[in-house]
């Protein structure tokens, strides 16, 4: 691997993604955990840019850092998760062994043997643009059904979450 903008970017975003992920599963303080999660997801957005999908990167930033981060923060405050739980883990040893095994299987059992040398190292030159996505999303031969189903899902999620979260007996605070 030569040293150029892409490889530098890849290394930086890997540090962000995995470092942030490590922070999420280890930090005691859940507000800091939220920030770690955002660091990790920012790294994933960086990957999307390296993979020529800048629209998805923008969506990632907007949805996660703009909305889900705020939502998780609100939930952390509402449940006082920051201060209440002293012990972080249950069944830590079996979980650790299990996830380590999973990682090794995924890496050396699936990824390296199948994709290590067989797929082309260079990607196709032509990249679909946001306009192509827009046309495909609402095309009858494209993704119009999942597109509308997604809309139904969002509506259902919003209605459901409002019904669940709303407190009939008003509370001060």
């Amino acid at each position: 691997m030569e040293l150029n903008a892409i490889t530098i970017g890849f290394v930086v975003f890997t540090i962000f993604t995995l470092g942030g992920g490590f922070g999420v599963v280890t930090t005691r303080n859940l507000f800091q955990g939220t920030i770690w999660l955002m660091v990790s997801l920012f790294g994933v957005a960086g990957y999307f840019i390296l993979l020529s999908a800048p629209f998805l990167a923008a969506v990632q930033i907007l949805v996660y850092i703009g909305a889900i981060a705020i939502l998780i923060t609100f939930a952390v405050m509402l449940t006082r998760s920051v201060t209440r739980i002293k012990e972080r883990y249950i069944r830590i040893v079996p979980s650790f062994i299990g996830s380590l095994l999973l990682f090794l299987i995924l890496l050396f059992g699936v990824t390296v043997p199948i994709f290590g040398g067989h797929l082309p190292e260079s990607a196709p030159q032509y990249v679909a643009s946001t306009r192509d996505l827009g046309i495909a999303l609402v095309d009858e031969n494209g993704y119009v059904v999942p597109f509308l189903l997604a809309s139904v899902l969002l509506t259902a999620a919003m209605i459901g979450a409002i019904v669940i979260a709303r407190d009939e007996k008003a509370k001060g605070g």
Partner: protein
Amino acid sequence: MDELCTGLCQLLVESGADAGLAHFLSLLVGVLLVSGIPLVTVIVLIWVERKVAARIQDRIGPNRVGPVGLLQTIADMIKLLSKEDITPTAADRVLYNAAPLVSFASVVLIWAVIPFTPFHFGVDLEIGALFFVAVASFGTLAIMVAGWASNNKYALLGAFRVVSLLVSYEVPLVFALLAPVLLAGSMSLLDIVNAQTGMWFVVLSPLAFVIFYVSSQAETGRAPFDLIEAESELVAGFNIEYSGMKFGMFFAAEFLHVFTNGILMALLFFGGWMGPLYYESPLIAFAWLGAKGGLIYFTTLWLRNTVPRLRIDQIMAFNWKFLVPLSIANLVFISLALKVMQELGVSPRNLAEAGFVELLPTTVVLLVINGAMTVYLLGLLRKRGQEARRESMAARAALAQAVAD
């Protein structure tokens, strides 16, 4: 790498520098040039803000340091340097210090995609319009972090209120932003400006501009939505524990954000650098953009200094029950009318190549639709206002009755 390496990069390579290094250096010079503009502007902006506020309040404003007080900001910065910087013991030190940096950086980063003239810009991203919304969401998170990391009840309470205000007003902002994107058929800011050759978008969709204007006023936390600064209620809000230069950074970010929004509105709705003789020289184009952005900026200052603050329940109700439905309806009507006209062949499909005359029928139809919506909305608001007045008068009368009894 070779075809990318032009201009300064090429010069460096020819003088014997490493190709990668030359590439990086030319990028760095570009970044410094582009970011220099907002950084110089913000120093002037603080002076403008104070001077305008003073004039509106019938004062003179800064007038001691330098000619007409122009160097006042420099003097203030030197003063801030000598101020003690207190970090509360209970604070989360890393996040506490990072928040002002992210807050300021999120505003400066918007300038990376702003085209200053047809030929001078940092980058012209395919997703330009989405980019600045995405970058602005870092600013929201920075406020949340600042409020939490201060470890202060007032700071956290202030941050919660401000963040819920910011996210709420982002909805109409982005729906209004969809109108120019739809008209231009592109998210690149350069394409959006070029599509306004025949007709400015403020004429094609005035309501979208009004919604964008109002919600960006809220996004920057300016009156009548200045919950960020609600001194009388929240002892200043999320930045209460900050002092010295870090406190200054939050304010610099806010001032710069207001002006940035002015420039963005000039680009999205007022044809950017379009104006007489703009093609003669990039300087004239740049001057046009600056003049339009500055004028919009001035009106926001004017508004800030003349209207009172709303209560949070009023702000939220105004957003969710008025601005959001309006912005959705606006988008629906514009896209419907345009599609019908395109199918009938009255309206051109590519606005960038359409002249003023070709666009006339489109303009008239869209203006009529916008006018009808405005009349309806004004009627609605009038009715609602009368109801509210009647309610509060009844409440007042009941109170007087109770006191009399």
